[in-house]
């Protein structure tokens, strides 16, 4: 075989390898919720290095749109979560037809084309099985993903003791806006599709311009708001963009989003949820940026913004962190950024608790009954004033009497 033939065959061989690997992943994962797929994918560290090298060549905010962001680290994990959550899957090695009723799975296509362009050995994730439309919670708890080794091993975190009880009915009229982390609300079955407007890679700026795949189709945020008219809207955005957008820009975009929400739904309550933490391992993979410090800075600004504007700020970060100030690895997926299912429960419990407290504190004060003592004092005072007024007005001045004469 000539060198030219070998060179020409290389792309084909890569695609064939990817297809074979994909098929192996699909058949090994089909219907078996105990067998996580993620360990077959390239290591998180490889993804992170690719992301860092891509991002270092970017200077403009306009290029943040999914071409290189931290979501690429978790593309594989997002896909594996989809496989874990389903109870049956259409198995195919070629592109499937879009389901009639779209669910809220994140769109991977843009991410994949960006990653593939770097000629990595990443399998083409668009060829993985599409999930079906049923996103009801699985009977069994999704299995824990295997913690892949990273360069910086993190000591085992203490088990979190935060409350995890929440009432899903409490959120039935609400809308959660977010990025790939928020897609987990519906993927894991904690919330219905109609309660989630989330997409891989979304940031405070792109949420205003991008469309998102929802149960109503691929729509923008304004349309989603008009369809759902939520009672409360929760915003959790910033994990994407925190590394290259300024705090000021993200705040401006958040303010614009809040305005848009209030114009669409004047009576709805807007709640801002802090940007979640990342693990120390994740932070160490990002060059030149202290990610956790920037998250803390942005969260402080969001808190001040909410106080200034009479809105509730839910400090989710505080309950998801460990004693070192980083994402508690008990809650964190192996990529150091995304949530395990336990984190969602803890977060929803925290949100429900904070919202309830906030709404009670801001409820219109009930009119108190006036006691009899105060009432009688008031009446007596009124009578005294009235008598004095009568004396004043009934007294005819001497001059007037003279004029009449």
């Amino acid at each position, binding site marked *: 075989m000539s060198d030219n033939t070998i060179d020409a065959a290389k792309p084909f061989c890569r695609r064939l390898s990817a297809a074979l690997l994909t098929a192996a992943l699909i058949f090994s994962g089909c219907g078996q919720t105990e067998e996580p797929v993620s360990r077959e994918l390239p290591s998180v560290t490889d993804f992170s290095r690719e992301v860092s090298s891509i991002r270092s060549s970017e200077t403009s905010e306009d290029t943040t749109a999914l071409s290189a962001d931290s979501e690429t680290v978790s593309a594989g994990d997002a896909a594996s979560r989809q496989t874990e959550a389903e109870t049956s899957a259409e198995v195919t090695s070629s592109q499937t037809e879009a389901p009639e009723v779209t669910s809220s799975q994140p769109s991977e296509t843009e991410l994949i084309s960006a990653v593939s362009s770097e000629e990595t050995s990443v399998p083409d994730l668009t060829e993985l099985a599409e999930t079906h439309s049923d996103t009801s919670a699985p009977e069994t708890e999704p299995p824990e993903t295997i913690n892949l080794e990273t360069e910086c091993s993190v000591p085992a975190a203490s088990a979190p003791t935060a409350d995890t009880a929440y009432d899903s009915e409490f959120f039935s009229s609400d809308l959660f806006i977010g990025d790939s982390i928020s897609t987990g609300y519906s993927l894991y079955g904690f919330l219905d599709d109609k309660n989630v407007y989330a997409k891989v890679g979304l940031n405070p700026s792109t949420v205003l311009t991008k469309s998102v795949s929802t149960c109503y189709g691929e729509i923008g945020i304004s349309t989603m708001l008009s369809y759902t008219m939520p009672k409360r809207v929760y915003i959790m955005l910033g994990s994407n963009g925190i590394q290259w957008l*300024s705090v000021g*820009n993200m705040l*401006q975009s958040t*303010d614009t989003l809040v305005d848009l929400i209030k114009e669409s739904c*004047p009576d709805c309550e807007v709640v801002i949820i802090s940007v979640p933490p990342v693990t120390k391992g994740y932070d160490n993979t990002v060059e030149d940026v202290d990610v956790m410090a920037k998250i803390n800075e942005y969260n402080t*600004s969001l808190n001040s913004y909410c*106080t*200034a504007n*009479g809105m509730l700020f839910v400090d989710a970060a505080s309950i998801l962190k460990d004693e070192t100030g980083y994402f508690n690895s008990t809650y964190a997926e192996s990529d150091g950024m995304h949530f395990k299912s336990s984190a969602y429960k803890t977060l929803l419990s925290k949100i429900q608790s904070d919202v309830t407290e906030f709404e009670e504190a801001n409820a219109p004060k009930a009119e108190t009954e006036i006691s009899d003592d105060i009432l009688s004092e008031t009446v007596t005072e009124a009578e005294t004033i009235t008598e004095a007024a009568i004396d004043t007005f009934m007294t005819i001045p001497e001059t007037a009497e003279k004029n009449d004469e």
Partner: protein
Amino acid sequence: MNKINYQNELDKILSGIEREGTVPSLLLHSCCAPCSSYVLEYLSRYFKITVFYYNPNIYPEEEFYKRRAEQERFIAELPAKNPIGFMGSEHMSGEFYKAVKGLEHIREGGERCFACYRLRLEASAAAARDMGADYFTTTLSISPMKNAGKLNEIGGELADKYGVKYLFSDFKKKNGYKRSTELSKEYGIYRQNYCGCVFSMKERGIDDTFENN
């Protein structure tokens, strides 16, 4: 509950000014050069502006004079359709601590901040009356961490009290805040990382030590 859209209110006033073909005078309270950057770029097309730098909240004193110097420099360098003057006060920090006594532990964005808004806006209203300005307003609303509704509410009250029209505004709208960060970079303006008072500095963990004045 529907909020008042102060940007719309401002648009109406500016449209009216354009129709009349006049150039009214405006006393513009400014907290710092970065916040004033977009506001001056925007309003100098319609008004003769006097920037009023009165910020007794700023701590420490060196920071006050540093921001003042940057304010004067920016005014000198910004090309403007109508003239921009400057009127600066001395530090006068005692006024601030008197105004916020008892509110020291309230988080940034709350009642302590409202007291600070009132202190600075009242001085601005008085200065505007004394110099015969047609309007007065403040750059403070450009920050997403300031309550524009409260600023405009206080401004409206003081307008009645001092007999000078308040220019209702919410300068962070129309990407004003973002534009101010761009202008800050373009002009190399010093941009502080806390609002100004010792309490905001402490909340952000910028300085662990401070003195009670």
